[in-house]
């Protein structure tokens, strides 16, 4: 049993009148990859966006329940959301680099948090982040080119580098490969294998093969409810719920 990094307790989320999550309770282990699977609209993206409070941006979104990271309630009034997001990075479904240079994309986070003391510090952080995101060798000669000029897979790795740059504990990935081709997907999956030695990773994915390949634990969401969460092998070989069985064998979803 690993350390528990994140713990969600009876999480209910409403978008206006519509309830998106019903009593979700689960935990995620430190320095492991946890995958969240389920059909579209089942609430897995909503759940992951609660973990760094990205749902705060949406006016009509109401979150009830408790989420603890390292034992601290992240919805407590004393929690500063900017600080939380420094610790919990996020990579989105569609690569969203800033329309700035590759260097600026990665340097932005450290700069606003005042992490780098001087210019050479900042350069070191940028280079290290790009190396960790397995992008450095491809872009080292053109750090001052536009980040938006990279290929889709490279852009997504740039976004991963951007998330790493502020040295978070946790990286949330919301379907990071859904806009990528199989080769770029394979690179990102390989990268996740490397990153989990340092970071706790939560990944939302539509691909069950991907969940099986990268994660140690998997949660299955359906209609806003967490149907089942267990070791990945167990979910894919011997699920305890009929709905999980139906989903992974392709009977619906």
């Amino acid at each position, binding site marked *: 049993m690993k350390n528990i990094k994140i713990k969600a307790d009876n999480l209910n989320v409403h978008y206006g009148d519509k309830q998106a999550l019903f009593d979700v309770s689960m935990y995620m282990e430190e320095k492991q990859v946890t995958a969240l699977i389920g059909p579209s609209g089942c609430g897995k993206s909503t759940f992951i966006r609660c973990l760094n409070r990205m749902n705060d941006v949406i006016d009509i979104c109401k979150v009830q329940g408790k989420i603890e990271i390292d034992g601290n309630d992240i919805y407590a009034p004393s929690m500063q959301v900017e600080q939380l997001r420094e610790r919990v990075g996020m990579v*989105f479904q569609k690569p*969203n680099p800033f329309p700035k240079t590759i260097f600026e994309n990665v340097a932005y986070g450290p700069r606003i948090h005042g992490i780098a003391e001087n210019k050479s510090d900042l350069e070191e952080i940028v280079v290290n982040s790009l190396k960790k995101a397995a992008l450095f060798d491809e872009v080292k000669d053109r750090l001052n080119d536009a980040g*938006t000029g990279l290929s889709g897979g490279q852009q997504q790795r740039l976004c991963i580098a951007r998330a790493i740059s502020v040295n978070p504990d946790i990286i949330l990935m919301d379907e990071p490969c859904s806009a990528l081709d199989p080769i770029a997907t394979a690179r990102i999956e390989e990268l996740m294998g490397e990153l989990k030695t340092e970071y706790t990773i939560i990944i939302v994915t539509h691909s069950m093969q991907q969940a099986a390949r990268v994660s140690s634990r998997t949660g299955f969401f359906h209609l806003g409810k967490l149907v089942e969460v267990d070791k990945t092998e167990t979910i894919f070989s011997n699920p305890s719920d009929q709905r999980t069985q139906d989903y992974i064998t392709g009977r619906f979803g």
Partner: protein
Amino acid sequence: MTDRIEQRINSLNKRLNSEKRFRIYCIGAMSFALAWVLILFLNIFSSGYSAFYRTVIQVNVPFVNLIEDISQFSEMSSEDINKLSMYSFSKKTIYGLFPDIEEKKDKKMLIRIFSIEFEQEIREFLKSNKSNINETETIYLTASDDVDQVNKGNYPRDLDEDKRRIKDIQLLFFDDLVDRGLVSYEFNLPFLMRGDSREPELAGVGGSIVGSLFTIMVVLILSFPIGIFAAIYLEEFAPRNRVTDFIEININNLAAVPSIVFGLLGLGIILNTFGLPRSTPLVGGIVLSLMTLPTIIIATRASLRAVPPSIREGALAVGATKMQAVMHHVVPVAMPGALTGTIIGLAQALGETAPLLLIGMVAFVVDVPQTPLDASASLPVQVYLWSESAERGYVEKTSATIMMLLGFLILMNLAAVLIRRKFETKW
């Protein structure tokens, strides 16, 4: 089988034909619009270009007759020269062109082929050349507007004399001067430098150009920051509720309010309540800012809305505050659109006439304004003023002013296009 193929071919031909017709309609509509623009430009250009030239008459001025020892001029200050009585001297100088004329009436007629400020022109020449004046100097004096119009061919010579402003004897004088090679036609620099005047040959657009530029400057300084900040607040920070909906509707309404209403507001509040000086570019600029604000706000909001939300999320996800996400990432991307909107708003303001009439910028102002607090005219109001004037000389001036106005508008729109091209974010 062949029937079905034939049917398909028929239906395809029909579709292609209707497409052809549609293209013809579109090209027709475009040509129609273009033709009108062309007619407008040709009309204005053909009647306006001659205002950029003026007629001058060469006169020999014997300064030695004014003061025998001409070296004294160099010791005089400008005030001393202003005090010199030069009127009869100047008149005599002009009589010198036709020494044979005896009758007083004819002499008067001769004087009248020159602009009324001939004495002033000689004095100015003396002032600027006082240190090395010769006994006799050749000076080009401005011809009167009637002579100018005759010279430009804008004035019919074959009317009866009593229906003409220019008399037979003046035409004789003029033709004789032309034969002697004393009449010349030169670029009308004073037209671009001077303020308005009751004499068409002396009237210039300089005052209204400067007035318009001051006005636009005030509009820019006031409406650009206010508009941008209001748009950023409404689009990025304001909660969506009844109050903001109400504000939004009213901003859109404001954009549709007839401009004269803003003029009344300016008259009632800015002039009468706050007591700011009448007829000034400052007040004009404030009134036009009110008119320009909705344009800027609407354009800026549209370009903020066009920035993908994923950019905001990307910034928030690394821990930027809402303000940082907006100011560092969203606003720079939206800026070209906001600037384009601003320039289009400014161009509208530049061409706006009605509100300026109400706040007194329609006054007859001779001086070129030095600051936004001086009474001033503006280009569109100058068009309005001159288009109502009876003298023939103002006709070409009106068109020339419209040309200047159109020139500024084209420049501003060009700037808007260039800014958008240069700074547009490529995704």
